[in-house]
């Protein structure tokens, strides 16, 4: 007889679409620990924060998302994005009733780490500096949860350093002139101090902003990439390769550009990929 599996929505947010392999691998990890988590995200499943300057529109977007999640009948929404998670608690659920609990993905994988452990068989020899922020950690102790999950990986050494970047993730810092560059310089300094060779990001926007630091001779990976590597799963970081390529267009390739649409690629994607490093 088949055993009933726990069901959830994996709410990956909006900007995670840059990192399809992270969405895919996270869903696979959740499945491996016994949670059938259907990925859901993008503009149609938005928390409303892109319209923070208009509460009426913000509310409409958020309400639509909650109603869709309620309609799934799944009792848990597993979040990825700290902004989405906080918005669910601060402004979405207080306005539109929810029929689900909201749990961060780090808490789920940490709570079920006994089922994760047998998957992580391949050593990942790396001295890892965890890119931790001050924010969100007060809601969900994500810095400790991710660190404990990473410690399951054989061969991986997590270095200790007190530096915590301000904000809840790097996209918040990018809106304040000078703040992101300062945080990246401090991160590189902490890595040098500890002899770390790998920067491990927790959130997507930190990864998006951080991949360019590979030009400083360090490796930049998301925690999901590290788990995938240890599990022996394919999770190639296409965004990092494109962002660090001398010719991003060639790195993406004409077939994929055709899939995205030539005009969309040139107007929406290429400028970001060609953005100069912050430091």
């Amino acid at each position, binding site marked *: 007889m088949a055993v009933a599996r726990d069901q959830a929505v994996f709410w990956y947010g909006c900007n995670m679409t840059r990192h399809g392999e992270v969405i895919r691998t996270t869903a696979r990890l959740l499945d491996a620990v016994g949670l059938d988590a259907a990925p859901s995200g993008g503009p*149609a499943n938005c928390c409303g924060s892109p319209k923070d*300057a208009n509460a009426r529109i913000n509310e409409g977007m958020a309400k639509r998302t909650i109603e869709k999640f309620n309609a799934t009948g799944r009792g848990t929404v597993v979040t990825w994005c700290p902004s989405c998670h906080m918005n669910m608690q601060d402004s979405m659920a207080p306005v539109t009733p929810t029929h689900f609990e909201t749990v961060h993905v780090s808490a789920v994988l940490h709570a079920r780490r006994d089922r994760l452990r047998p998957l992580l068989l391949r050593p990942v020899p790396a001295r890892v500096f965890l890119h931790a922020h*001050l924010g969100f950690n007060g809601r969900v102790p994500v810095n400790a949860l991710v660190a404990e999950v990473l410690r399951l990986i054989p061969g991986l050494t997590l270095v200790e350093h007190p530096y915590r970047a301000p904000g809840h993730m790097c996209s918040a810092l990018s809106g304040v002139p000078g703040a992101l560059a300062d945080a990246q310089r401090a991160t590189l300094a902490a890595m040098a101090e500890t002899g770390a060779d790998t920067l491990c990001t927790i959130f997507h926007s930190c990864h998006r902003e951080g991949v360019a630091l590979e030009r400083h001779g360090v490796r930049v990976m998301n925690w999901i990439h590290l788990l995938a590597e240890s599990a022996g799963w394919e999770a190639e970081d296409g965004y990092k390769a494109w962002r660090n390529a001398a010719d991003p267009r060639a790195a993406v390739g004409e077939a994929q550009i055709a899939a995205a649409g030539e005009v969309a*690629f040139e107007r*929406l*994607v290429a400028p970001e990929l060609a953005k100069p490093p912050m430091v």
Partner: protein
Amino acid sequence: MTLIEHIRGESARLAALCTACGACVEACPMTRYAAGVEAAGPGVVAAGMRDVLRDGPGTPEALAWIGACTRSGVCTPACPEGLDAAFMLRLAQWRAKGALGEPPRIRVKEDTQYSPKVKAFARLTLTEEEQAKWL
């Protein structure tokens, strides 16, 4: 309840409890990026933030501080009244951005190409089947 009512209600509730002692400002790691905050002093800046929650205009340094908030959250454990100071800043930021229909008083970072950009990247990194199911 609407979001506007939620923002107004929570603003009034928290502003009534806030003593503007400035502990939240002192704890904040972003004050160095907010013009005039260090010179004005924490209590004055906190009072300006509270004024925004009370439908007031705020002060230039308070608005600079509100605009520099990146949700570090260290203000909340610093509050001697036990208030969720980070949420107060969130409320103040909504209001200063003009979320309730007033003209914005701080810079609003809004990407009009946000949705099409998210979808363009999805077409690059997700299969057609994944896009159909996951977006």
